């Protein structure tokens, strides 16, 4: 694959109350960022099952972001973000063991006001993904 026209694809799981609102705010404030992200809304980052992230990678996502409210207490559901923190801290360990670059997964706390942070996270991740190249499932003939 030629890396010149490689456009990384990022799947984002964003909690309804903080991160999704921040992404909305980025739009409302016309803060431009590259269109490589696809956002899936969940009520809370605590809803994000690691299986979803694996499914995203399996289907060709080059990067995945799970975004939630800032700990300890922004979470609309008291501590759903903490549940996400626990799961994805372990999840990062798994990726590391399996040899998948850590840059491909991010757990980010983005409050409803942090449109800038959203834009920065997207740009940073894109830059890293461009450097890494595609995460592509290769067919192996047996």
């Amino acid at each position, binding site marked *: 694959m030629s890396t010149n026209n490689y456009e990384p694809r990022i799947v984002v799981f964003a909690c309804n109350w903080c991160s999704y609102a921040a992404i909305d705010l980025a*739009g409302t404030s016309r803060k431009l960022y590259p269109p490589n992200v696809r956002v899936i809304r969940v009520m809370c980052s605590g*809803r994000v099952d690691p299986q979803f992230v694996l499914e995203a990678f399996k289907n060709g996502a080059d990067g995945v972001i799970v975004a939630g409210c800032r700990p300890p207490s922004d979470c609309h559901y008291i501590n*759903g973000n903490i549940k996400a923190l626990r799961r994805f801290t372990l999840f990062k360990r798994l990726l590391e063991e399996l040899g998948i670059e850590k840059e491909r997964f991010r757990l980010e706390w983005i409050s409803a006001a942090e449109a800038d942070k959203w834009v920065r996270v997207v740009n940073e991740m894109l830059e890293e993904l461009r450097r890494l190249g595609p995460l592509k499932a290769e067919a192996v003939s047996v």
Partner: protein
Amino acid sequence: MIQEPRVGVFICHCGHNIAAKVDVKQVADYAKTLPNVIVSHHYVFMCSTVGQELIREEIKKHNLNRVVVAACSPSMHEPTFRTAIESAGLNKYLLEMANIREHCSWAHSDKEAATEKAKDLVRMAVAKASLLEPLEEEEFPVSPTVLVLGGGVAGMRAAIDLAEWGFNVYLVEKNPTLGGRAALTGWLTNNRRGADVVNNLINKIVDNKNIHVFTNAELVEFSGFPGNFKAKIKVNPRFVNEKCILCGECEIECPIEVSNEYQYGLSRRKAIFFPFKAAYPPIYVIDQRVCIKCGECVKACQYGAINLAEQSLTLDLNVGAIVIATGYDPYHPPKGEYAYGLHNNIITLFQLERLLDEDGPTQGKLIIGGAVPKRIAFILCVGSRNTTPSSKNYCSRMCCTSTLINAIKIKEKYPDIDVYVLYQDINTYGNDETLYEQAGEKLVKFIKFEKPPTVDISPEGIVIDVYETTIQEEISIPVDALVLSVGMVPRRDQNELIATTRASCGEDGFIREVHLKLNPVEAPTHGIFLAGAVTGPKNIIESIRAGSAAASKVATLLSEGKVRTEPFTANVNEERCSGCRICVGLCPYKAISLREINDRMVAYVERALCMGCGTCSAACPSGAMQQYGFKDIQIMAQVVAATGGGIK
């Protein structure tokens, strides 16, 4: 059974807000090619009356059973479009929105790329929409009855407000009288007395037919869900009934004498006693723990008001909500802390308040150790702000103000007494600052300490040694009396309360509210409300205010006569569930418990308590727990659709 999906896609131009950056026609054409999509339209303002009418017409014309609207953020118009499809006869949760404005046209400059992204967003929405199910917000009728736990100022105020609003209120107090700690507080700001405040509130309660007071009573069981809790109240025997006219003959004959907790141990009382002047109900009471049932009081009572055979009784109540207003305990210094317990003239602020109160053991005279002290000192932050090993980590909020009120009172009554206040910071916040000014004017001597002072007992009396920072020298202050301005701590019996009510406590040990800033009187468990110092130190005004606020929150829950559940609650497949309990401990609202079904223990979601975060579904190891509207297969479908097409 879920119907075969028939999806209609409606794409909004939002004037040129979307249309300028997204080729809406191309997106609409693309949508037609997606599985399950029957029709696809684009229109200039989908949220307008015309746009909504278009959606309704198409639903009817094509028998659509799912709708995707690609427009602005769902936070903007999801309610609008839900209402629209509902009016066309669809369940309103059969709507999925694709956010092609905030997340697309407004955020990207390249029209081609934005159009491609919009297609993806529509594809993701269609994928999820195809798997959406109709959801119902269940409704439960509610009991217009409220249980208020705790008869202090916060609980009384909550009870009054609730009763005036029209609710039926059970006010349950563990002690034999209403009033709580405020009744013993003595002087307050504006020259008011705690006893008067309590008296005013009690008068309002007595006048109100909607309030049922149970003293000497406690909550022993609590279950159910918001709007329909079951509460079991145990009313302990008082042994004295309404025939009592407070003549006091019984008290004279009673042979048992114990320390009087209503004077913080400064005086003694009998086993049969009347707590204080304003106590309610105005009836004597026998302290079951110390009474030997000798029968002397029965003999003494001319009115036949005493029945030593009285038994406790239990009440089963069906209540819509509970207000927990059980208050706090004063910090009790361990023996030796600032020489507490080593000298009779070392007392706590709570005891001093009794001494200065006209209803107190000295009728308001400052007599400590048999004499009026010439020099008296206060040490602040006793038990608070980490000053000593056994003290708490927090500031107790009310002690500075209370100390200054009493210091000023002493100066007013006994201008010749030297009053010292040893402090770290004087926290007379807000308008209470005037007290600080007044105390200064009345020549109260303030000494700031960085390191807590030490107190020594010598043959001559009490000596306080403190490093005085401004002169940078250790100074000794001999005093005749020392008042320890102790703070507030969680009640000793709080753990029982937590176990019964499913409330929880925070790091400081006080009961935790759902959100410190914006929901200070609501517990995380829906239907449980918190008033007064049970959530942390508060003064009397603040506690009363919290009582009213809790009443307001109760009314927000019960005023409609019914409670509605969240649509996006969790739901258990009981056949699949193994009862592994992983979900139970994770639920922030304690909405999940185990219950027996066909001889097996399986998870059970109390829908009325579930707030719909989905954390249980994410953790459920067997996939038995699924969140409505955010089921695994629905989200997975979005994931697959999100990754399904290439960008350019």
